């Protein structure tokens, strides 16, 4: 007797009595996998350098593609150095440089020191944006203030390399007519190979602050191919890889245990214990997934690894059980990899979060910022200004070198996705992966069609 009749006959199998049929077992789809983020891995660390080099090498690397694009956009124009701008004699001129956004509200260690007498520390701000913000363009030697009606200061962040066309005013400012960004990296012609399989993205499990939840259980069972009927399980078997985009062990700096007891050392040790316990639970969770599926594990802002980006892979000793499986790959954040013929890249969310702090949050969705970082050709332009990063001096690894097919940012407020089409015919699936602890939502991407869909777990 069927109580809950459904329109699919396949789904009725499990609402029937056991039959003589042999239960089906599906073999998980295998897709070639390659980690392309070697450039984010630290060799020997050298913190003696200053951050100035990051900007100079970034500018040097992006000047050439920018000059090309500027010429394509504005015809045959002369590109000036800021120092030679006087030669233009008030005519239209193109200048290439790095943007610097002057923000009074931006946290500054020098100001903090000078205001040490303040009794209460100022509350951390949601964003540093104000109406007094000013925009400058810097090249290797000079800087010039940017003005004009075409300037939307709120859309710009420090660290973007761009070309501007306009005129120098008499007061030494630069009146901008138009902008040109490096643009998304052109994609080499790809072989039309079939990409079977699906990619699952999750982020923000935050096990330090969440108890064992039904949604997490269901997620595991779904990935493992335990729930559902054979038709569903066939779908589940096509998940070729799970990408965990950060903040799996800890999702915020909050400490929950032993609050109000004693600060300092006691609290530190309590936090350490909490993290260790959460890491253990994460290891349990992960070990069940890696038993039947490949996992790419990225660290996040609050995970127990280095804080500066690029964050290095979580150490295998943190995850003793799951690290034994070959199916677990600990990777850096940001990360670039290849699945079949698809290039997948993304971050655990810090760059986008930071851009939103620098700009006004309210009107622009993170998805737009994600798209803009593509056209800026840089994963995290605000590093090292407001986002701490390693002081590179030979090469800026955050410059986007390859056009991704799937480009994601983890730990976002809510799920968003769009298919972005570039000027050179690039198609990029942009995804904001929501925090799982809040939404219980993961994102499933079809590697063949680049279709994305959210899948949420829960109970009611």
């Amino acid at each position, binding site marked *: 007797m069927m109580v809950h009749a459904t329109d699919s006959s396949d789904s009725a*199998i*499990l609402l*029937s009595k056991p039959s003589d049929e042999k*239960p089906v077992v599906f073999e998980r789809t295998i897709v070639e996998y390659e980690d392309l983020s070697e450039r984010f891995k630290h060799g020997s660390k050298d913190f003696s350098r200053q951050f100035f080099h990051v900007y100079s090498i970034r500018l040097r690397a992006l000047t050439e593609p920018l000059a090309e694009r500027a010429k394509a956009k504005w015809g045959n124009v002369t590109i000036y150095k800021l120092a030679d701008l006087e030669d233009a004699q008030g005519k239209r001129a193109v200048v290439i440089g790095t943007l610097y956004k002057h923000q009074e509200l931006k946290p500054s260690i020098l100001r903090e020191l000078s205001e040490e007498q303040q009794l209460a520390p100022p509350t951390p701000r949601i964003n540093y944006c104000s109406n007094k913000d000013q925009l400058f363009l810097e090249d290797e030697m000079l800087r010039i203030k940017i003005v004009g009606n075409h300037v939307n200061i709120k859309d710009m962040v420090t660290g973007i390399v761009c070309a501007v066309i306009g005129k120098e005013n008499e007061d030494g400012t630069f009146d901008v007519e138009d902008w040109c960004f490096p643009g998304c990296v052109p994609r080499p012609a790809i072989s039309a190979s079939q990409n079977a399989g699906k990619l699952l993205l999750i982020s923000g499990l935050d096990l330090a602050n969440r108890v064992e939840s039904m949604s997490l259980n269901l997620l595991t069972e779904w990935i493992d191919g335990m*729930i559902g009927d054979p038709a569903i399980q066939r779908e589940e078997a096509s998940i070729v890889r799970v990408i965990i985009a950060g903040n799996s062990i800890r999702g915020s700096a909050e400490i929950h245990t032993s609050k109000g007891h004693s600060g300092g050392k006691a609290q530190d040790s309590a936090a350490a214990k909490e993290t260790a316990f959460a890491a253990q639970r994460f290891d349990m969770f992960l070990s069940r997934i890696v038993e*039947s*599926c490949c996992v790419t594990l990225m660290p996040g802002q609050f995970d127990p690894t280095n804080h500066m980006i690029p964050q290095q892979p979580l150490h295998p*000793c943190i995850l003793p059980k799951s690290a034994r499986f070959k199916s677990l790959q600990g990777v850096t954040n940001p990360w670039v990899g290849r699945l079949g013929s698809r290039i997948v890249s993304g971050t655990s969310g810090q760059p986008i979060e930071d851009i939103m702090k620098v700009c006004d949050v309210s009107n622009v969705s993170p998805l737009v910022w994600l798209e803009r970082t593509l056209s800026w050709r840089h994963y995290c332009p605000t590093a090292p200004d407001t986002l701490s990063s390693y002081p590179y001096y030979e090469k800026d690894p955050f410059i986007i070198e390859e056009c991704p097919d799937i480009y994601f940012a983890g730990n976002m407020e809510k799920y968003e996705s769009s298919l972005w089409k570039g000027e050179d015919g690039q198609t990029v699936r942009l995804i904001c992966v929501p925090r799982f602890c809040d939404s219980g939502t993961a994102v499933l991407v079809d590697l063949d069609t680049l279709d994305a869909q959210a899948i949420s*777990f829960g109970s009611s």
Partner: protein
Amino acid sequence: MIRKQIDIYLEALAGYINDDDKLVTYKWLSKELGIHVNLSKQLLFEYWETQRVQKNHVISATFLLMGYVKEREMRVEVVKEDHMASAKEKFEKIISEHIYSLQKTLPEIELLAITDKGDSQLSAVHSSQSVLRSDHEMEVLRWGSALLANKQMKNNTQITAPKVRANANTESKLTDQAKNVKESGAKSTTNKTAAANSSAKTQKTAFNNFFAKAIDKQSKEKTSVKGVKSKPVASSSSLTTTSPHKNNWFEEKKKPISSDNKEAKENPENISDSKKPKLNEDKEKSPKTNLPKKNAWFEAKKKPPSTSDKEAKVQVESCSDSKKANVEKFEEKSPQTEKVSKQESAVKNLSSGKTGDKKKVASSSRGKKRKTSSKGENTNKKRKRIVVISSDESSDDSETRDDIEEPDSSEEPPQVVERVKSSPSPPLVKCEGGRRKVRKLVDKTFVDEDGYFVTQKEYVYESCSDKEEEMPVEAAKPSTADVAAKTANKRKQVSLLNFFKKS
């Protein structure tokens, strides 16, 4: 599927739900019975339906719903049987549903989260890529390939030399206990690569040395000296101070202390020259009688690993013999003060006579050692470790030891003070920043380039602890008291006339 089998399963299921009052989820059931998850779901359904038909509706069920809430948004949800209808309204299209769990009552659906996770081997999806990493791969993953290579090289240079000897020594004479240690050590070390192995080995040998020593001591108390001699003496490294050595040095030491410097020079020739002057020096500089003894003990430790067991034993014999003679000679020659002879007799009692008495000497030496350690002078970690062992094994004859020791520690000081005065060495005690500091002999142990442990003696000034303070204070007390008495006498006005005279 054979019907009979299913009936057995159903019966078991009924038991789990009704008798054991379990939250029976499909995954738990599949793990418990070792069946495929889909079969498990069907079993739950059959049981649930028979219960419904029979109208004795005592069990509650939860269902799993899977479907699309809207375009491109899937939802997986577990709902209670009662809320099925309302839950289904949320879905645009349901693509799958099945029983998730059966139980008597379920107050909170989240309770299901803490049930067993099931066995992924019984799921409908298997992965050929989920294989375990080999031990070597793990090692590389953990330490990085470059670091690992580095480590391996270091290990090789550091370990091989001492290890070989240690192994030769211990492996041949392993007692059962040591073997046990080895086994457990092997078990605990999961890393089986070359690097890990070598490190584990050093650990093991250290353990073995340690135990061999302990066993050595234990058995020595039971057996005669001959037995002791045949016992394994792990001399591979400075780690291992063997008790024969100790005795040897202890006895040697004792004499110089009780006699004066001249006597000391007549010490047995068997002692190597390099050690002799040092001993004398020690004696001169040491503030307490305990210290030289300790030093002697250190000396034994310091003995380079190259001295073979045999040599050491020969030394033991000859030393003790000559000492015996010495002691006797001394007694005849110089019937010094009461206290000295008293102590001497104690020494004689122990060292002369039968060789079997050696055991007593050993124990007494150990007792003193313990005493020194209790004084809080212990700075050497290794020594501490040995002390711990000896203290609990020799607790039985502690009374006799105390008898011997007491005069020793209480009556020696005067002599020591004398010696200190005559010696040209730096002062024992000095004041620095208002803090009393005592010059002490401390040994530093480190591993040299060749992998040997080297123990060096150094004199350092240390601020003295409470216990150390006692002795010097005691010595100083009478004099200050005298002076005080004298001055008090001087000041005292003898008569009325005196007063007027002064003025």
